[in-house]
């Protein structure tokens, strides 16, 4: 105490200026809001994000390499495991690429079934997006509401495919088998309820002043930046760029359906959230139209090279037995060449680039995964925002880590 009192007040050197230090914060790979195993190294000044570096690869599974050792039909087992939320998009994108390679003809009924399931899957994916996205903003309840509807959709999937997540239902040249009888009435029941539910969700958050405060003007990505960063899907359309693969490069007959492409104005978290709600309405519209044109008919390409013979035929036809055996042991041989078919998944442009060397297994498969490309814009959107905003921006870009790391 005495020493302290003896100190000469003149002798104590005062700091010249007040200064602050930046802090490096490691977020993830285990963190409630990184939507999987995304790891971010964030440089913070207080709560302001100065810099952000995403580190990916924690969920790398080597699907693309594995596909080189599987026949074209077997690959479909892997595809839904990448984007497990909008799994039909991956099945479909892969099937479309291979069908283009072998020149398969998909019967109209199969096309329609694919569209129905793809849009249902998009609905389920957007529901998860909304539930978890709003949870990241601190609202607990929408999560459970969204998962209630998603549960109904997954039940429908289970009805059709026997699986809730990894369907393995789409085949090269069609779908595995026809829809069960009860499916269409159940789907109609669901379509009765869903639009009201969508209205409810929109009222729950889009009209909340706190949500407006939290999301408006946060994580803005201007259109030209979004294009330069390769952003696609709802996040690009939130910035006001009208690019939807279903309209730009139609596939599976999407050009024959009437639906709107909702566009945002500012490209902030608010727009990205709202765009998904609007897209859900459009998906419901598409499913309604698809149900109208669901005529009875075959669901697989009759070409015996691509499609194995129906089971009863094996009892009577030696030819059928041979084809059956060849199909399940060797698979079919597409001609040499390479194809890429873009599709619109819930996250953005999804395409499979498939190279064939004429063998029964792909020489190389490369997935243009929307989550991976969209993640590039995360550092741009987060700079200058705060930690709570960062969490909201991650959610609004809607990455699925399986899709990023593959």
């Amino acid at each position, binding site marked *: 105490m005495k020493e302290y009192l003896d100190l000469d007040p003149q002798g104590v050197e005062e700091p010249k200026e007040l200064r602050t230090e930046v802090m490096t914060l490691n977020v993830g790979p285990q963190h409630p809001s990184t939507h999987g195993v995304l790891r971010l190294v964030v440089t913070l000044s207080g709560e302001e994000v100065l810099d952000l570096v995403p580190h990916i690869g924690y969920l790398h599974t080597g699907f693309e390499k594995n596909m080189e050792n599987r026949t074209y039909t077997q690959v479909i087992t892997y595809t839904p495991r990448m984007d497990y939320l909008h799994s039909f998009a991956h099945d479909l994108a892969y099937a479309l690429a291979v069908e283009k390679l072998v020149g398969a003809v998909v019967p109209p009924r199969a096309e329609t079934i694919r569209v129905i399931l793809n849009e249902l899957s998009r609905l389920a994916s957007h529901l998860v997006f909304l539930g978890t996205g709003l949870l990241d903003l601190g609202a607990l309840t929408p999560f459970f509401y969204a998962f209630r509807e998603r549960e109904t959709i997954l039940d429908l999937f289970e009805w059709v495919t026997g699986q809730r997540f990894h369907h393995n239902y789409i085949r090269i040249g069609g779908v595995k088998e026809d829809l069960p009888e009860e499916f269409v009435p159940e789907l109609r029941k669901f379509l009765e309820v869903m639009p009201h539910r969508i209205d409810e969700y929109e009222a729950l958050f889009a*009209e909340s002043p706190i949500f407006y405060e939290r999301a408006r003007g946060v994580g803005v990505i201007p259109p030209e930046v979004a294009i330069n960063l390769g952003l696609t899907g709802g996040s690009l359309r939130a910035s006001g760029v009208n690019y939807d693969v279903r309209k730009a490069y139609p596939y599976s007959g999407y050009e024959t359906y009437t639906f709107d492409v909702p566009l945002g104005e500012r490209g902030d978290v608010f727009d990205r959230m709202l765009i998904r709600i609007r897209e859900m309405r459009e998906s419901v519209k598409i499913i309604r139209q698809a149900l109208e044109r669901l005529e009875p008919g075959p669901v697989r390409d009759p070409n015996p090279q691509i499609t194995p013979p129906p089971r009863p035929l094996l009892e009577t036809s030696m030819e059928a037995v041979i084809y059956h055996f060849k199909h399940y042991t060797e698979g079919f041989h597409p001609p040499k060449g390479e194809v890429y078919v873009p599709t619109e998944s819930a996250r953005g442009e999804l395409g499979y680039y498939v190279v064939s060397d004429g063998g029964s297994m792909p020489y190389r498969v490369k997935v243009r995964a929307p989550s991976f490309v969209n993640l590039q814009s995360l550092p741009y959107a987060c700079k200058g925002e*705060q930690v*709570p905003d960062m969490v909201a921006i991650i959610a609004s870009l809607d990455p699925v880590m399986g899709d990023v790391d593959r």
Partner: protein
Amino acid sequence: MTWSYPVDPYWMVALKALLVVVGLLTAFAFMTLIERRLLARFQVRMGPNRVGPFGLFQPIADAIKSIFKEDLVVERADKVLFVLAPLLGVVFALLAFGAIPFGPPGSFFGYSPWVVNLDLGLLYLFAVSEMAIYGIFLAGWASGSKYSLLGSLRSSASLISYELGLGLALLAPVLLVGSLNLNDLVNWQKENGWLLLYAFPAFLVYAIAALAEAARTPFDLPEAEQELVGGYHTEYSSIKWALFQMTEYIHFITASALIPTLFLGGWTMPVLEVPYLWMFLKIAFFLFLFIWIRATWFRLRYDQLLRFGWGFLFPVALLWFLVTAFVVALDLPRTYLLYLSALSFLALMGAVLYTPKPVRKGGGA
């Protein structure tokens, strides 16, 4: 006018203090269950209903679990503060409850239904409830984790934003009643009508600030599960973590008991006056209201809480304080305050109804 209150013997005060502590701890345990069950109802699910009838033994199971979990003290923590912080929080949270009266004198088996009758009751409550923030702040600081640090900084930041509004809002009733004694406040309301009618803006500010003080949605930023992974209690486990939960819930219960005491006539009721009953009903009402809010709202960002605290709570409380001071100083009829208070209520309703919603259904994104 002044009221006089009987003084209880010391052994009775000690007994009542014990009763409050035990009662609050039990209430905490069952509040966790009630909150979870209610949230579940809001969220179309069942909630905990497996342990005992209606899940009634769930709190006991939770207590056993948290006691027997491994009690970790992280390597980088400041060991002393790390252990002390949760205790500090709980002790100060418990202290606040003692001054609240639950009925008229003599209604507790011939004794008074409060632990202490302090002439400076309100100041005491302030002092004690503000000390409780140290529990959170020190916990975050002592954990040696960056997430906890951010959480504790947030709790200090939100403290300075709601504290001013909270204090100023209470000055209006104090001016009207002319006493800091909680019993005086209740008795004055019994004779002159609820303070809610005289000071609606102060009530509003106080209720919001109390919500912030209990760190509940939409002001639960020190915890912020989705951002800070638990914030100040990220590094805590086992019974220490449970102590933080206890602190939070006791704050929550105390806030729900203080709002009626200060503004809704406490244990009194114009009709059908039964001691305790109305007090418990009023507490239950506010507990339910706060749980409802938690199920509905988003979390604010902390700079938004600062802006809200300084830009809304503080000016409204200050304005109403000045109005009340004006009326009291010039000795105008108190009914002026009734009219002004009603007017402010209508103004609020108008603002809520006629503020355009951010997005209209089907409008442009």
